[in-house]
């Protein structure tokens, strides 16, 4: 059934009338996502890709019925308000695409997600794509492209880099390894669903037999995944590459999450910990697809 998104999920787009909102709504609709409404305050009555626009999430819900997922495309300073609005309106999964969301805003979103029982992906995420099911966000950019790049199969992908999410998906498909769901967890220091949360969903998903994980220096997401393997909570093969070996301490290369603080989150530590518990960690990114192909072939 794939994880997080399928054909039946009812999707709302917040910020649907903006530059990115419009372009990505087209992608989502054309790829088969069930987008049922959009929101932009003050734009009620407009239509984007034939989808009705409302002023608030609550209003949309009253007019079109329950909403499972909201995808947010509003400028970073407005993200907190949009996410809280969706969660308090009862939306259980919120996908936060924008970059540069202040971290205390994310902490507040996190707190409200606990109160309301919602989950969120991102911020700073390219989104989620379940092959031949649906896409949330901007993975693939265009529906025609996404259909050509990603072949259906049983390997899940979770990645801390957006571009790498698509790269892994494309290169795996090219060597004949099909995909279930691709998840870009987001590039920031605090994200709603880090690797271990996604890994837990893949464990439960019948359509996923193995997972490819792109890790990065900084934070402890990959170490937590190792803990899940060790405790038996994740039992499927994991093939991983950890980026950022050459990065300088204390300097950020683009992803806010990829900063080494003290000795924590180092490249060496992550690789060692994952190998200890039996995960496959490749030293060269370009080895990822062939290695995965061999492992999946034996399943």
């Amino acid at each position, binding site marked *: 059934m794939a994880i997080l998104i399928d054909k039946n999920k009812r999707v709302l787009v917040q910020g649907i009338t903006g530059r990115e909102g419009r372009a990505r709504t087209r992608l989502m609709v054309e790829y088969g996502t069930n987008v049922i409404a959009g929101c932009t305050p003050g734009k009620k009555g407009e239509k984007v890709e034939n989808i009705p626009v409302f002023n608030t999430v609550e209003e949309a819900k009253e007019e079109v019925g329950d909403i499972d997922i909201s995808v947010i495309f509003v400028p970073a300073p407005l993200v907190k308000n949009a996410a809280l609005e969706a969660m308090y309106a009862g939306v259980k999964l919120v996908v936060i695409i924008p970059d540069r969301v202040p971290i205390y805003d994310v902490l507040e979103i996190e707190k409200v997600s606990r109160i309301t029982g919602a989950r969120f992906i991102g911020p700073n995420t*390219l989104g989620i794509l379940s092959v031949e099911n649906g896409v949330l966000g901007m993975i693939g*950019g265009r529906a025609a492209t996404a259909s050509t790049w990603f072949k259906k199969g049983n390997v899940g992908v979770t990645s801390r880099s957006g571009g790498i999410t698509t790269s892994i998906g*494309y290169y795996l498909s090219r060597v004949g390894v099909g995909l279930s769901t691709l998840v870009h967890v987001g590039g920031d220091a605090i994200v709603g669903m880090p690797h271990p949360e996604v890994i837990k969903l893949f464990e439960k998903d019948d359509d996923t037999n193995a997972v490819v994980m792109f890790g990065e220096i900084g934070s402890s997401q990959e170490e937590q995944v190792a803990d899940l393997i060790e405790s038996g909570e994740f039992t499927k093969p994991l093939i991983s590459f950890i980026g950022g070996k050459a990065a300088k301490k204390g300097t950020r290369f683009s992803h*806010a999450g990829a900063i080494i603080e003290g000795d924590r989150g180092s490249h060496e530590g992550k690789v060692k910990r994952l190998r200890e518990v039996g995960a496959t960690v490749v030293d060269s990114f370009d080895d990822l697809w062939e290695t995965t192909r061999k492992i999946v072939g034996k399943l």
Partner: protein
Amino acid sequence: MARLFEYQSKELLKKQNIPVPSGKVCQTPKQASDAAREINKPVAIKAQTWFTGRAAVGGIGFAENPEEASGIAKNILGKTIRNFTVGEVLVEEKLSIKDEMFASITIDDLERAPVLLFSLKGGSGIEKIARDYPESIIKYTIDINSGLRDFEALNLLRKFDIEGKILLQVSRLLVNLVKVALAYEARSVEINPIAVTEEGKVFAADCRITVDDYAVFRHPDLGITYARELDAPPTPLDKLAYSIEKDDYRGTFYFIQLEKNFKKNERYLGFHGAGGGGSMMSMDAIQRRGYKLANFCDTSGNPPASKVYRAAKIILSQKGIDGYFGSGSGVASQEQIHSARGLVKAFLEENLNIPAVIRLGGNMEEKAVEILQNYTKGVPAPVEGYTKDDSADYCAERMDELLKEYKPLKDNKKPEVGLKKVDYEFETVTGSVKFQYDLCMKCSSKICIESCEPNILKLENGAPVLAVSVADAKKGKCTECLGCELECRMHGENGCYVDLPVEDFA
């Protein structure tokens, strides 16, 4: 500069009623002696850098009188400590310290909240103290809405046997420190040491605050003009790049200079990535071949061509780079023709005299490569474009080969940029589009009209004009795709120019 200096951090503490020693920040030895005279007690003179461990490298001195203070300040000012040239010293009252404690607040990715750390033992080498005396450490998760309440702080400190008067001061300090962190959206706040003096008073003897880069816009009072995580102060070029990104939320442009003083026997490249993860791998690939990177740069998240153009101009302004290497994740969801157009405009304007290898894999990659290669045929240096089926490693190999083959022209003349006269002009989000109508009249292609992606141009008496209102064009209807200018250069009479000012940095 989302990292604050000690003296700036202490100003914020003072506002939140945390006691700090009386002191003054000084730029000259004379100011230092004046400050010492005013304090009228023995003083400490402390280099203002972003690093701890200053004492070990001569960054801290003590003076009994103003004359000594001047001498010590003279020694410290201008000193280079770990990449960092000291421009200011803090002259403050020397405390008679009896005990040292430690407190910090950081955002913890496991707790997904700010976490307060307190240690009964503080001072230099806090990491080692924490390992050796785990029983002296308290860790406490903070609720971002309610902060730390007085009773919580007192309960936390119960496990230590702190004398009543000191206990109250320390607990107040912790409560107020949490207020500082929340009020200024700090990624981290650290007081080390919390000094307990012989007189039984508690002070923040040193303090370091890092403010969240993304929240700086909400704190204009901090006067932060540059919000990036670096290990040294930003260069003028870093600041210029930041000014371009600051108010333009369309896509991401990230730039940091890595090398400023090029060594004779090394070869340096301008680096232009797309996407953080892929960029890091591409950097590894080119560095493995023995090249140094003059800069790191990332344009991603579907930036307009104008942003990519400015990024390229900034990269090319680094005099002495030997090549231009562009490579990111390789399979980008963004429309790569925008990146190609941005690069082409910059390469033409600079009359590119260093080889360039650009990996443009992703949406519309074939067209992007065609634009990149065909439209730059006139420049002296070779320009090669690659797609998603070419690995970063292969592109690095091509870069290496081109660098070995190409001999740059000795005196390269940049072409004149812009139009001789402007007959029609409209503003865009970050610049303006200009036309010279005598050239438009001669043009039979009128290609600007059809090449305009948002479709906002029309012909009026044979010349291009806006088909939407001037206000709409400026608000973003014009996406700064550069289609009009580049197609006009190729197929028209060169009567169209998109003016995208980048502050003069020659």
